[in-house]
């Protein structure tokens, strides 16, 4: 299916951009007239995906993170977060609740939150090449007054 709208932003893996990325996603999603809860779920999931890039994909250096947002006719928002970082050796393990390589500073709940706040989550990773996280969420249609 072809998207009806699309936006793409590429930014440096600086932690100051976490807020920028989730706010940009929320602004793009606004055209679907989402509820506040839906907006919050989207912001939270984007924040988790982008934080993963900043903390794990580029642990020692800065790299580029791409956020691609797409809208489909059936009111589905697709969010893709892509990096060209170190990759994840074992995606299945990384997706498990509480698993983290980030020590005491991290909760290990990032993927669990993306999974439970979105309808679909796909993680593709190649060690040494990078990781692409794709999430989908259908936004409820509200009755017009």
């Amino acid at each position, binding site marked *: 299916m072809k998207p009806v709208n699309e936006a793409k932003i590429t930014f440096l893996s600086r932690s100051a951009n976490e*807020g920028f990325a989730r706010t940009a996603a929320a602004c793009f999603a606004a055209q679907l007239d989402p509820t506040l809860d839906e907006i919050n779920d989207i912001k*939270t999931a984007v*924040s988790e995906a982008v934080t993963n890039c*900043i903390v794990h994909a580029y642990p020692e250096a800065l790299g580029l993170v791409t956020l691609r947002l797409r809208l489909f006719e059936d009111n589905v928002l697709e969010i893709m977060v892509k990096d060209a970082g170190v990759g994840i050796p074992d995606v299945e393990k990384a997706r498990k609740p509480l698993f983290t390589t980030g020590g*005491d500073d*991290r*909760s290990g709940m990032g993927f669990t*939150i993306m999974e439970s706040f979105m309808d679909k989550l796909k993680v593709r990773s190649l060690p040494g090449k990078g990781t692409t996280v794709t999430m989908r969420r259908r936004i409820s249609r509200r009755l017009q007054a």
Partner: protein
Amino acid sequence: MPVQCEELGRVLTASVSGEVDHHAAKALMNELNRRVDAALPGRLELDMGGVTFMDSSGIAVVLRSWKRMRQLGGSMTLRAVPPQAAKVLKAAGVDKLIPWEE
């Protein structure tokens, strides 16, 4: 990341505000640790009424404070947890671990 603290007897109330993400978490965690270690309270009340956004970075902040309070033989309560932060904390089962009021 502003944290406002108030000591009343052996109770330390720490009010957190703003966006609690990975960008803000480290400074917040350090500040909370510093205030708890200075006050050595019997109970820490973490007031989250001013939190406008929280992701899983906030789970680690809350759990770290809770562990520190346990080491000190004290307790911890979460107060005024906004709905968005509540959903994140509940995803990690924090509500089953730490007493809280929404």
